[in-house]
């Protein structure tokens, strides 16, 4: 019975909401809000054709490339800047400024510098997502426990081993927090770069539907974006639980004590 109850908790509210939505669109068709049935049909028609190859996958590819590069560069540069004291002092105010620049304004700037190309969109994503990862890594490296750091030095742990076994693990909770922000900014930038300047991709397609008043198609696009967001969030949570298993365990022990 308990699993039945948790299932009811899981799907109860969503079902209720869909029911209300269905009931509200039952009598008179609303121009802006299509009925759930129509939307489901349109969703299948629009997205399970060649569009998945021509628009969805290229968009996702750019997103993945951009986010992966941003995480890689962010962590590497963060480790370097975080462990060299004068470098950190030298660069921190400049980096803080870059992080404060709202990433979407990079779209027109990079459009100008690079033209409207695929690599421009990837660079937009990289240059918007890198800051949370970079700054959180710097912060995490700086906050390495002093006793641990000294012990490692006493035992002669240095160089790559020090990074691998001391610095990276102890900075990882912060790095993961940065990566979480990086993912959501990346998705936003993927959509914006395509809405602003493109002739293909998810963002472009959705705006195109909206401009031609293809309302159910537009809604189906919104749902695709939502599903991508949800999928990314689940993948992230799963990864985080694995990477930070030791950390959550430690927190639990601390909280219990």
């Amino acid at each position: 019975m308990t699993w039945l109850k948790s299932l009811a908790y899981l799907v109860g509210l969503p079902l209720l909401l869909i029911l209300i939505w269905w009931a509200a669109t039952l009598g008179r068709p609303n121009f802006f809000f299509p009925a759930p049935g129509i939307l489901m049909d349109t969703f299948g028609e629009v997205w399970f054709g060649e569009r998945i190859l021509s628009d969805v996958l290229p968009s996702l590819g750019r997103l993945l490339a951009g986010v992966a590069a941003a995480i890689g560069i962010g962590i590497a540069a963060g480790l370097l800047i975080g462990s060299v004291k004068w470098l950190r002092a030298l660069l921190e105010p400049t980096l803080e400024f870059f992080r404060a620049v709202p990433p979407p304004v990079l779209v027109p700037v990079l459009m100008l510098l690079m033209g409207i190309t695929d690599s421009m969109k990837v660079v937009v994503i990289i240059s918007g997502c890198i800051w949370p990862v970079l700054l959180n890594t710097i912060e995490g490296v700086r906050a390495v426990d002093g006793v641990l750091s000294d012990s490692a030095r006493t035992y002669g742990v240095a160089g790559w081993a020090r990074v691998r076994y001391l610095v990276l693990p102890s900075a990882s909770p912060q790095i993961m927090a940065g990566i979480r922000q990086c993912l959501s900014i990346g998705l936003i930038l993927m959509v914006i770069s395509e809405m602003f300047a493109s002739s293909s991709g998810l963002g472009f397609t959705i705006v195109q539907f909206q401009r031609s008043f293809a309302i159910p198609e537009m809604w189906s696009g919104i749902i695709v974006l939502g599903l991508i967001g949800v999928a990314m969030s689940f993948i992230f949570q799963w990864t985080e639980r694995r990477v930070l298993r030791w950390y959550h365990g430690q927190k639990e022990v601390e909280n219990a004590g």
Partner: protein
Amino acid sequence: MTAQVTAQGTPQSRRTVPVQQFLGLAGILGFLLTWELIPRAGIIEPRFLPPASEVMAELFRAFGLTAFWLSVGETMIAWFVGLLMAVAAALVLGFLIGSSAFLARATSSSVEFLRPIPSVALIPLAVLMFGVKIESSLMLIVYASFWQVFIQVLYGVADIDLVANNTAKSYGLGRMARIRYVVFPTALPYLMTGVRLAASVALILAITAELVIGSPGLGREIALAQSGGAISGMYALVLATGLIGVIINMLMRFIEKKTLSWHSSVRSEVVL
């Protein structure tokens, strides 16, 4: 944005602070110098990347223009109103849902599903419903910043100390009194974290809406400058948005410090 681990109070900190500030300043100057040299040396053509001096001059000229301050004002109004609406809604719903175990459980799947939906997905809907008015910006801003605050309020309400709550109960504090004197102070640090995160998200969305939809404000000016070929003007506006971002960050940290000055621990924040 996350986890300010303060490492103050080390013995030599007083001596090193000026050195650090000097280095930071040198870093900014070095950046500006590099920027100045890249177009001057012809690595990137000046018509695509004007030298820093030209952009700075343009920025200072903009500071003297009414039109510039008008669009700054429009952006800031959208930012502020959107943030306010999001915080108010998140506070009410957060306390309501967080303090009932049934509601918290029943809504969690919907929240987990709705929260990761990128607010830019709503852009076409906003355009259809509101056109290029401020309401479009507000819709995106409220949606994006609501979740930041809402989740933090839920965490905060869940963090309540049972002993304190039971003590308050046995001293005969009513429901409202307990919310005011037990739940609210517990949730306040979380709430402030949420508001600080929401403030920068709201700015991003305000600029995005103006850039993509064309609702009035700095973002639209950037798009106009870019398509009109006013390149150093565009770079100046981009710098201006960065400055606004820095000011908002500083303001939020200041407010957080002031409102939490009573809070004993310098809390290392929850990992988001």
